[in-house]
């Protein structure tokens, strides 16, 4: 596709969570993907499919009950190419925010309620760069301008911001140290449609101006369609389908992706029935062999329940369009 080098190469990431009793829950299994500068990669799926866990694992912010069983995360940072999981704690702290930053959901209590927003952004800057107060003040002001919040609000507290403003403030804070890679965790959830559009525009604009790589986690296909260049569909902790947004949305091969797209209501065609996917997501501590989606798949056939499907290229689509489905196996009879 492109001759650029990927910013981040994730290989075979498997994450487990230890539970009170019984076997651990497998939140992610053998997930691999690349992120390129100047591109937005979408991670999409139902709640619990592992998309946020991916971001947390990469930033090494998983809770103590979590365990990265396998995986490598090759990051093209300032100091060269390093596996994020091999860095020491101190090295990782230097990478955090400076090179890879994350903007959490605005609905969360992600900003300290007793510190001003300006102070919190200033803290991020002064933590990683040796600048004086005047310089950091200017940078904070510039960041506010970038995200479209009035400068007069710099010394306000988070509770004085609306949801949309808080999200934009989080993005401003994430960009404070001019990172190469931005993780956006559900940036539009809990925001109303108009504000959603503003935030997405902001992300696109920022990416253009700063040449960032962006990984955007969402459950909303509409957001993916609008902002993502490429998309990965996760189900039950595994990649179901991956490719350019155009390919995946228009030539979806994996039954789960197909169902997801069908379930997405089209406002214009009001006479359509609302389609939902029957059944429930898999229990991550009691996984059945074979394809994770098999219990709910409308095209399930014999190999699905026993063998984990490999990734198959989708013929007639872009070369990076892959789907993990036995139906694409030319040896199989199903279709």
């Amino acid at each position, binding site marked *: 596709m492109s001759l650029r080098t990927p910013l981040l190469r994730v290989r075979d990431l498997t994450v487990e969570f230890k539970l009170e009793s019984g076997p651990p829950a497998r939140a992610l299994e053998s997930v691999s993907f690349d992120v390129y500068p100047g591109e937005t990669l979408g991670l999409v799926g139902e709640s619990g499919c592992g998309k946020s866990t991916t971001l947390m694992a990469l*930033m090494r*912010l998983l809770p103590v009950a979590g365990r990265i069983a396998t995986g490598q995360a090759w990051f093209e940072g300032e100091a060269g190419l390093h596996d994020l999981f091999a860095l020491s704690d101190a090295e990782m*702290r*230097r*990478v*955090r*925010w*400076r090179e890879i*930053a*994350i903007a*959490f959901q605005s609905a*969360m*209590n*992600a*900003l*300290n*309620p*007793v*510190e001003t927003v300006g102070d919190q952004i200033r*803290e*991020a800057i002064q*933590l*990683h760069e040796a600048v004086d107060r005047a310089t950091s003040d200017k940078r904070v002001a510039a960041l506010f301008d970038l995200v479209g919040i009035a400068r007069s609000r710099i010394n306000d*507290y988070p*509770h*004085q911001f609306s949801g949309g403003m808080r999200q934009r403030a989080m993005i401003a804070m994430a960009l404070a140290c001019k990172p190469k890679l931005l993780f956006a965790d559900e940036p539009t959830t809990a925001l109303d449609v108009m504000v959603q559009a503003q935030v997405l525009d902001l992300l696109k604009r920022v990416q253009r101006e700063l040449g960032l790589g962006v990984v955007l986690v969402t459950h909303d296909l509409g957001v993916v369609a609008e902002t993502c260049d490429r998309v990965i569909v996760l189900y039950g902790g595994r990649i179901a389908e991956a490719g350019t947004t155009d390919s995946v949305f228009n030539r979806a091969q994996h039954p789960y992706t197909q169902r997801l797209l069908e379930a997405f209501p089209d406002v214009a065609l009001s006479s359509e029935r609302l389609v939902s996917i029957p059944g429930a997501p898999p229990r991550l501590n009691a996984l059945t062999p074979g394809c994770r989606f098999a219990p709910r798949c409308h095209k399930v056939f014999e190999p699905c329940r026993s063998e984990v499907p490999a990734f198959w290229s989708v013929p007639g689509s872009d070369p990076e369009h892959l789907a993990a489905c036995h139906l694409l196996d030319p040896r199989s009879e199903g279709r």
Partner: protein
Amino acid sequence: MTRTDVILRKFALAAVTIAVVVLLNFILFRVLPGDPVRAVIGRGVRISAETQAALRVQFGLDKPVFPDQFIDTLGQWAQGNLGVSWSQRRPVAEVLVAKLGNTLLLITAGQLLSIILGVGLGLLAGWRRKTALDVGALTFSLITWATPTFWLGIILLVAGSAWLGLPTAGSRDPGNVGKPMLEVLPDIAEHLILPTLTFTLVYLGQYMLIMRSSVLEVLSEDYILTAKAKGLTVWQTLTRHALKNALLPVVTLIALNLGFTVAGAIYIETVFSYDGLGRLFQEALNRQDYPLLQGAFLLLAVAVVGSNLLADLIYAYLDPRVKTT
């Protein structure tokens, strides 16, 4: 709601509480007892019928209770005239003021120590959850909570005097009574050690639990994760983000505890025969010296309500979520 609203509400609550206290005081001691003259003058004092009648008029006891006597009494209390103690044959206000200093000394020393130690320990216990430190701190709190204050005082009294030769009674040596404080400071300090130690031990555990609980809540909040994501070390996250948030509710809870602190003072002063308001209260009870009892209760209640109000006001200014107009 705005800060002004919050402050007004707190003042209103304080005013209502004091009103209740005043009313209670009045009803219990003027209305309830059979003979109001006795309530004012005291039992065991023999007076002739004429003197009684004269006293009745003098004290305004011939007037109707409500509103006349009530208003009169309120007026007197507002002016600081709390009646005369018949066991000490001095105005109540005078007696109270004389003992106030000693109790303040004890309570301040005890509370400062227990707050500082308790909050510090609570921070560590909450952070290092489920470690030996945490389990130890929890066990300590559990046991001190289950220990009656007065009994702990007795134990410390015995241990302290037997092993350390510390004084067992009074706020100072008999020879030093009446001398100015600064002159006999070491003596006062010596007498304060055991009572303060008891005080500290009793409340240390409670404050530790309160702070630990607050810390656990704060450390589960999302902004702590944000702080980690920004690249802050654990210690930096703890001190810059967790601490202030955890301390805020603790301020209110400690203030709420003030009423129970007074109870502690009563027990500790009784055990150590410490010459303060607490012991005074207990003695007044035993001697059925109602004016003194009444006056002491009024003073204690108003003091606690006042401190509570102060703490609430401080909180209103500290927490930015309480909006300014």
